[in-house]
Structures are given as C-alpha cells and as structure tokens.
C-alpha cells in the first residue's frame, strides 16, 4: 500500500512539525489526510472544518507553503516526492495545532464598515436595481466571498503592515460601496482610506492568485481607490 509522509504543525505559536504516515487513497483530499490522522493516529490533533465541500471556508490551512482550502485540494495536485507539510493558516495567531484565531481577520471586516446599513424600512418599496446595472455587476463579482482567509494569509502587505485591513475586508467594503441601497458610504470610504487601507495595496495580486472562489480583491481595492479619489475631488471627503 502506498503511504504518504505528512508533517503536521503541533503546538501554538511555538511548536514543531510532527511526522505521520497516512495510507494513500484515490481522489484523497488534504482534509481527508488530516481527518485520518485525527481519527486513527492521534486524537489530540486540533483542526477546523465543517462542510467538506468548499462552502463554509473554515478548513483553510497552509499546505506545502501555500494557503489553500484543504477540503477542495486533492493530494495529487500538491504532493511533493510523496510528502505533504500542513501548517496553520499564515498571518493569524495560532490557537493550537492547525487552528488559527480568526478574530483579527473579522475585526478588520468591522473596521472596514463591512456591514450593510439600509436606508428603507419594511413599509417602503423594494429598491429596484437591474441585473445589468454597472455597480451591481461589480458588487456581484466580489459578493461570493465566504471569509476563508486564504487571501489574507497570501498578502505580503498584511505581513509588512499588521494594521492593514487586508484583501477580504476591502473586497467586502467594495461590494457595499457598489450597493445603491447602502446608507453608510462616506463613513465607509473614510474607514477604507488611510495608512492601513486600500492605498497600502501594491497590486501584487497574491490575493487574486490564491482566492479559491476566483474573486479578485485587487480589482475591488482598485475600485475603492477610484471611489476615494472621486469623493476627494468632489469635496465629499
């Protein structure tokens, strides 16, 4: 039987890789490998997953040095010389083993005013926004983000400037800037500018390269820069 050599991070910020041998299976995913270790080799291994089908965004980890969803990554596509190295998602505090603390990531969504603020009540008519509306199409391009953190872990700017809001929070803000129904536009634009905001992005596109949903946060960040420029030139900011 073919065997996969797997190194898995154990510990928190301080720790070491532990080696395991896992039976190779056809169509095996990295999450299958981690689950095998936890169920058959070491029940104390901590990791996080829920849906197993690329919907929930909770199983992102660093596989052979690259941030990925483990549930949708086949071992075949990433294995190197019969070996895998699995570490927690980068740029986030490690709680234990493969589990990271996502709080700093989602705190930045809040800082970027990533919450919709409606301007109508239940007594008003629905807003009618045509499917072909230009702003709506731009919002649609970024709206499928499930908050897995792969883009955040792949962004060099987050490493260089820990305050940087990061691609996911800025992408979320951009979808709301494009939402004609939202009533917090000036406040949001103020929140996404500044030293830690969209202007810090160097357009290296690590986020867009790695996003498992094929979203381009880089395009959203460029949109935020344009929106801020328009607001400043009009004297609205």
């Amino acid at each position, binding site marked *: 039987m073919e065997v996969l050599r797997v190194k898995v991070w154990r510990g928190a910020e301080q720790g070491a890789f532990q080696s395991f041998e896992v039976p190779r299976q056809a169509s095996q995913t990295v999450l299958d490998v981690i689950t095998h270790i936890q169920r058959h080799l070491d029940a104390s291994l901590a990791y996080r997953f829920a849906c197993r089908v690329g919907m929930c965004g909770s199983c992102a980890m660093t596989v052979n040095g690259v941030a990925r969803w483990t549930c949708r990554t086949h071992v075949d596509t990433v294995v190197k010389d019969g070996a895998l190295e699995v570490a927690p998602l980068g740029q986030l505090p490690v709680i234990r083993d493969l589990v990271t603390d996502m709080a700093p990531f989602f705190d930045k969504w809040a800082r970027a005013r990533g919450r919709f603020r409606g301007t109508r009540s239940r007594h008003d008519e629905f807003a009618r926004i045509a499917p072909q509306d230009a702003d709506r199409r731009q919002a649609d391009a970024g709206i499928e983000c499930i908050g897995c953190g792969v883009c955040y872990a792949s962004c060099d700017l987050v490493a*260089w400037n820990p305050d940087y809001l990061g691609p996911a929070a800025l992408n979320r803000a951009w979808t709301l800037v494009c939402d004609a129904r939202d009533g917090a536009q000036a406040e949001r634009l*103020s929140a996404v*500018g500044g030293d830690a905001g969209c*202007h810090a992005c160097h357009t290296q596109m690590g986020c867009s390269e790695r996003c498992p949903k094929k979203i381009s946060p880089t395009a959203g960040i460029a949109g935020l*820069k344009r929106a*801020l*420029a328009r607001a*400043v030139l009009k004297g609205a900011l």
Partner: protein
Amino acid sequence: MSARGETILWLAQRASAAVLALCVMVHLVTIVFAVQGGLSAAEILGRTRGSVVGLVFYATFVIAAAVHAPIGLRATLGEWLGWRGASRDVALVLFAIGLAVLGLRAVAGVFGGAA
C-alpha cells in the same frame, strides 16, 4: 494619515508618474539625438544654455520627481523599517525639498544663462 490625506498623496503620485513617464521618454530620445553632435561639456552647454523650452521641460521633470519619489519612499519606510507617523512625513518633506532644490539648481546651471 486620514483617508483624505492618503487619497491626495495617491493622486499626486499617479499624476506625477504620468508626467515622469512622458519626461523620461522625451529625455531618452533627446540623449540619443544629442550624442550624435559630440559629447563634451562645452558642446552640450552650448546647445542647452538659454533654452527656455529645455528649462521648462527639465524643471517640470525635477518637480515631478520631487513629488513622486518621497511618496513611494514613504510606503517603503513604513513597510520595511516600520517607520510611520509624523517624524517620517517631516523627514520626507525635507527630502522632497532637497530633491527639488538640487534638481532645479542643476537645471538652472545647464539651461540658464545666455546661449
């Protein structure tokens, strides 16, 4: 810095980059033509001194560089050295003034005076 301040810096860097792109192309083409007539200091100064067009063009070039470079350096200092805040901005304003003064002095030396 505020979102407004950061946006103004971004606009200034974009606008100065556009000016620099044009200036660099014109400068390189000019050099290619200029060297064909000889390259001694006297020959070059003979062609440049008193040229109002040259003076305006290179003064624009210097000012665009003095705007563009410090804004880029600002990000580099923040990301690589962790130097942020008012002290960085004061140092970069001084750097920008230094670039402009030295550059304009050179432009005056090459293009000023009688032909």
